[in-house]
């Protein structure tokens, strides 16, 4: 079947969805939606529809990005636009079905917004706080279509990029990517067209393509959400790349922890095969290409391209020195091109929309848009896509809605374990490859974790070094031992055993590891330490003075009971596991600091109306000492 016939069918099917004769209900069922209870909401809706005798079509959709207010449900009532409802529980969802579908009540209290413009007092979705400022291109279909239905993808212009690519010469395709200025979205920001050209020109056959879906940065979920929401966007990009590079085989290396993304990719690949988009003689153009899924096995270092290749070959995931680069000698020694999930989706967009359209957003050196995951101490946690060059403050305050509880931002962590912590004073920084690197962090794959004043920066540095120490593959000494040594000095500081010379030792170690490590894991492992040392040095100094100002490090805080507030109720005394609290019913309580283990049970237990227990920075002054 040619794609034209299939697309006509697809467009007719989609038309019947967006201008339906029966109500259409869309339930967000990516991992976040499921975790928030989408399954229960779906069952409640199905039961209500049966109870009311309404026939309606239920679709699954991917991630709209408003993960903080999942479960999301969209409804299109015949003759009305598509309305998105949020934060539904099974009870609210059943009410909504009855109110809206039977009684015509729009339920503005549950509505997030309306697709394509305001409607009857409800706001247009693209004017809402989180979605409004975004430019969704890699995410063009996310949360809109059923990711398990290739016809939805086709109806919204899917595989037009491939068709356009096939009408050009491979060199012209690479030039188009070059003109667009696309840089890799997986971390290093290497120009994609260069890599493709290197691989195209490399000697050897067969040539391989790999989609890097290992997404190992803790705090990152852009690639998961994209694969769960629109797998064909990524697969189309891989076909474009296969044609441009002259590759024979493709692989997707998917993180073990992403079962839903894996399942949706399997379904998508099957549909491509059935539609003549995979296998021999694709769309009758003579292009032969197939794609195989490979499951990772839980090793962060396997996101690094040479380690990934070792893992695919069945070995321990140890990186090797480059050159040779995978473009000349990669998988099984053959020319191999590796790109990130999002890079592939952006490539498909470029071929469909043109290089000019892609360059519409971005900065001089960083073109286009970037998907980011927003998590931590920020109101609107979720998945976003914004023009490169957007200021951190716009992302955190406008799109992210600011910090819950009207606290203030202390730091934003970008780029995961390879990145750094940027202080509130740098929030005007534009998010692009160069600006974040100059500040000592990296954009990396796009994870952003916001931290308010309750996070301790020394603890965060220690957290990341614990991670990199555990994930270091052990092949090179600077990384294997350097991360351990840095972590152990940080352990001492956090435990209150820091020495005056420690900060110098840390800075020295960091430089040695950065220079001496074999791969990006080790070279960038010091970044969280170096940025916190640079921007939050006073916190380190406070720790050396015996105080954790953020009240996180338990060795450097103590608890006290304010005598005036204490009612002598005995609650804290009973929960204390160390028998460190004296007093009795009606007798004011006192903490014996020598016995106290600073577990904090008394603080939790003290009734709100008294709030007599306080957590105080610094060690206790011990009378016995």
């Amino acid at each position: 079947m040619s794609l034209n016939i299939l697309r006509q069918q697809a467009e007719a099917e989609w038309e019947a969805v967006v201008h339906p004769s029966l109500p259409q209900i869309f339930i967000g069922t990516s991992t976040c939606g499921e975790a928030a209870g989408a399954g229960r909401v779906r069952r409640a809706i199905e039961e209500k529809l049966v109870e009311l005798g309404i026939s309606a079509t239920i679709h699954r959709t991917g991630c709209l990005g408003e993960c903080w207010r999942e479960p999301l449900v969209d409804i299109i009532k015949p003759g009305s636009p598509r309305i998105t409802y949020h934060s539904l529980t099974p009870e609210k969802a059943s009410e909504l079905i009855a109110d809206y579908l039977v009684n015509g009540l729009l339920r503005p209290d549950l509505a997030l917004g309306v697709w394509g413009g305001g409607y009857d007092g409800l706001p247009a979705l693209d004017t809402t706080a989180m979605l409004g400022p975004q430019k969704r291109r890699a995410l063009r279909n996310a949360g809109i279509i059923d990711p398990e239905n290739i016809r939805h993808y086709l109806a919204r212009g899917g595989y037009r990029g491939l068709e356009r690519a096939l009408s050009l010469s491979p060199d012209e395709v690479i030039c188009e990517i070059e003109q667009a200025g696309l840089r890799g979205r997986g971390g290093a920001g290497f120009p994609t067209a260069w890599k493709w050209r290197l691989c195209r020109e490399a000697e050897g056959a067969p040539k391989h393509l790999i989609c890097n879906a290992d997404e190992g940065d803790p705090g990152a979920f852009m690639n998961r959400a994209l694969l769960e929401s629109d797998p064909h966007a990524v697969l189309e990009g891989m076909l474009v790349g296969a044609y441009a590079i002259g590759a024979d085989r493709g692989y997707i290396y998917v993180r073990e922890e992403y079962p839903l993304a894996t399942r949706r990719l399997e379904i998508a690949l099957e549909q491509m095969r059935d539609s003549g988009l995979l296998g021999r003689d694709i769309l009758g153009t003579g292009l032969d290409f197939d794609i195989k899924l490979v499951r990772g096995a839980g090793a962060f270092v396997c996101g690094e391209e040479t380690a990934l290749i070792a893992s695919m070959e069945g070995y321990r995931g140890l990186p090797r020195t480059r050159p040779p680069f995978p473009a000349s000698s990669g998988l099984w020694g053959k020319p191999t091109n590796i790109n990130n999930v999002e890079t592939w989706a952006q490539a498909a967009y470029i071929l469909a929309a043109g290089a000019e359209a892609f360059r519409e957003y971005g900065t001089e050196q960083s073109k286009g848009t970037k998907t980011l995951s927003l998590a931590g101490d920020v109101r609107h946690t979720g998945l976003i896509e914004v023009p490169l060059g957007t200021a951190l403050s716009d992302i955190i305050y406008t799109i992210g809605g600011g910090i819950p509880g009207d606290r203030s931002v202390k730091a934003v962590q970008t780029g995961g374990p390879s990145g750094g912590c940027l202080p509130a004073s740098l929030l005007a920084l534009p998010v692009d490859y160069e600006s974040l690197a100059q500040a000592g962090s990296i954009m990396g794959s796009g994870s952003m974790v916001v931290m308010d004043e309750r996070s301790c920066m020394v603890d965060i540095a220690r957290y990341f070094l614990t991670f990199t120490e555990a994930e270091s593959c052990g092949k090179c000494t600077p990384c294997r031992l350097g991360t351990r040594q840095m972590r152990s000095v940080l352990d001492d500081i956090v435990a209150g055993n820091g020495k005056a010379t420690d900060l110098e030792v840390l800075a020295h170690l960091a430089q040695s590891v950065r220079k001496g490590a074999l791969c990006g894991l080790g070279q960038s492992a010091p970044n969280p330490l170096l940025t916190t040392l640079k921007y939050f040095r006073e916190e380190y100094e406070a720790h050396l003075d015996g105080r954790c100002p953020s009240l996180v490090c338990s060795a450097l805080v103590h608890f006290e009971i304010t005598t005036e507030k204490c009612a002598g109720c005995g609650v804290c005394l009973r929960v204390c596991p160390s028998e460190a609290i004296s007093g009795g019913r009606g007798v004011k309580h006192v903490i014996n600091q020598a016995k106290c283990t600073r577990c904090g049970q008394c603080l939790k237990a003290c009734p709100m109306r008294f709030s007599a227990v306080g957590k105080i920075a610094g060690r206790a002054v011990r009378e016995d000492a």
Partner: protein
Amino acid sequence: MDTPETALSALLTRFTPSRDNLIPILHVVQEAEGYLSPASMAQVAAYLGLSESEVHGVATFYASFRLKPIGKQCLKVCRGTACHVKGAGEVLAELEKKLGIKAGETTPDGAYSLETEACFGSCALAPVVVVDGRVSGRVEPAGVGELLKGENEP
């Protein structure tokens, strides 16, 4: 009756005996048997023509592979950045206290295994605990008991 050995042989025949199938095979063996026993790893090594130490080396490199049997219910606490910032440490401490085991261990009665994970990619709902593959978001330390009740359900 199939012996474990013949059951495993049947699994192995689904793969061509080439090195790049080692990790896919270990995944399938672990899914079938719950963990990688020395006997199974030896059989995999023989099938692929590798030494047992090669197979053991790969199995121990990757965090997904388990060399000990797993409890009936498996709880995985996320230790990712977002979850760390949102208090995953307390959630883990509470579970360790409730179950009387440390992360990475299984209760002596084999009822529960407690593990940690680098990130589940559900960071928007931090802190996250995954119980037998099901993601629970915004877990409160006080609410971890709810997660354990799952054992009563069929």
